[in-house]
């Protein structure tokens, strides 16, 4: 929230659109603004009323460079929009940079998302440092309901909850890399970097970066689903395969390979398999292991076929993975392979399995690979 927590004193807040961008149809601008206001009214008792003339609490306009508030925009890119916290006069007013390209989809800048962020300011929200929140100051595209728990906590501190609102599903808060209970969804290398997927996010661990970088999956690859189940790199083919549900995508570098998504069943898996939990390419053998529930499969990358004799039991072939309570681990969340060692992740632990000695030689916290 802003210092001294400015807010509107009435729950009925008026708005007026003073001009339109030529980038979109008027109806599309109106719809984006309507939906952006609704994002906030659905979680608070606030109601919004449109005025066609006169002074409204929130005056909405598109302008370029110096546009009347001595707070100029900067041409294409850079600043996208700004808004003033609740108050008389300019308070609540929301301005969009006309030098940007405004869209209603994931291309360029989505007006609905930017408007929802700005209306957050117009209602009294400052910036958040959670990259998954709507009030994070840097633009990224996301689909679905855009508020995170952090956003909802903020706005409800000002206005309280909506007594009769339908249940909304907020975006979860960004995972904390050094949380001792952190489990991961998938891990893969990509041209020497390590990508670690968790919920809607992924960390990028680069040998030249001192700190892992957190980003939203959808802001890097809008075509990918929000959550990833498994991933592996075939460094010889210079390709990374990403699995989500019954589909898989291929990346060459950070670029999606055309012709995907494909069904995982094209690899030779039976139709009963609906999800791959973990995948890892063993460079020494040219085989990719695909883990599904309590079993795993072996895929021959060279012939493009599944090896005979599979699926096999994870518990039987990778013995020695024990949880704290002594139970044997029979499912894995993620897997990687390096220098003869297979790293199998389950909940907040990783098991270092020696391929030669056929046994678990070390146990570590899953977030060891995030420098924790």
């Amino acid at each position, binding site marked *: 929230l*802003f*210092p001294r927590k*400015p807010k509107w004193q009435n729950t009925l807040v008026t708005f007026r659109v003073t001009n339109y961008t030529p980038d979109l149809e008027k109806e599309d601008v109106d719809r984006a603004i309507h939906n952006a206001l609704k994002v906030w009214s659905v979680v608070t008792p606030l109601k919004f009323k449109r005025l066609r003339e006169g002074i409204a609490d929130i005056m909405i306009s598109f302008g370029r460079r110096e546009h009347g508030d001595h*707070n100029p*925009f900067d041409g294409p*890119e*850079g*600043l*996208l*929009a*700004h*808004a*003033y*916290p609740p108050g008389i006069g300019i308070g609540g007013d929301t301005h969009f940079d006309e030098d*940007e390209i405004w869209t209603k989809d994931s291309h360029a*800048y989505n007006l609905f998302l*930017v408007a929802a*962020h*700005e209306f957050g*300011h117009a209602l009294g929200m*400052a*910036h958040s*440092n959670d*990259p998954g929140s709507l009030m994070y*100051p*840097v*633009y990224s595209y996301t689909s679905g309901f855009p508020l995170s728990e952090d956003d909802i906590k903020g706005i409800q501190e000002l206005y309280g909850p909506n007594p009769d609102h339908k249940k909304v599903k907020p975006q979860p808060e960004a995972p904390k890399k050094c949380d001792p209970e952190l489990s991961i969804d998938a891990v893969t290398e990509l041209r020497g970097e390590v990508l670690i997927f968790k919920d809607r996010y992924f960390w990028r661990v680069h040998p030249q*970066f*001192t*700190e892992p*970088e*957190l980003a939203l999956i959808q802001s*890097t690859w809008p075509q990918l689903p929000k959550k990833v189940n498994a991933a592996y790199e075939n460094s010889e083919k210079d390709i990374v395969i990403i699995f989500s549900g019954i589909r898989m995508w291929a990346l060459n570098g*950070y670029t999606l390979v055309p012709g995907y998504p494909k069904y995982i069943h094209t690899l030779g898996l039976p139709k009963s398999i609906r999800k791959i939990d973990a995948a890892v390419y063993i460079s020494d053998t040219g085989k990719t292991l695909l883990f599904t529930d309590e079993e795993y499969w072996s895929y021959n990358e060279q012939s493009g076929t599944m090896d005979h004799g599979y699926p096999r039991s994870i518990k039987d072939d990778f013995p020695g993975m024990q949880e704290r309570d002594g139970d044997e681990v029979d499912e894995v969340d993620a897997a990687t392979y390096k220098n003869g060692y297979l790293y199998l992740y389950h909940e907040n632990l990783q098991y270092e399995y020696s391929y030669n000695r056929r046994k678990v030689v070390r146990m570590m916290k899953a977030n060891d690979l995030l420098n924790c």
Partner: protein
Amino acid sequence: FTKPVPANKTDTWLLGERYLRRFYGMQPGLLGNPKSSDVMTEKIRAMQSFFKLEVTGKLDDNTLEVMKKARCGVPEVAEYN
């Protein structure tokens, strides 16, 4: 994935200065030699801390990358008057 860093050091410094003036209330006219500017270092540290970057007080690649991204124009720390 990573935008290239401007080859010219002055450009980099000006980009950082412009960003910090705009979003971190850095006053114009206070800065002397870039190497000895405590004010700028302090502002860079505040910005790095907000974005959960490594806090170095320097305009390193990760910091510049965030500074170059498209964003909203409301200051993170400056008080609204």
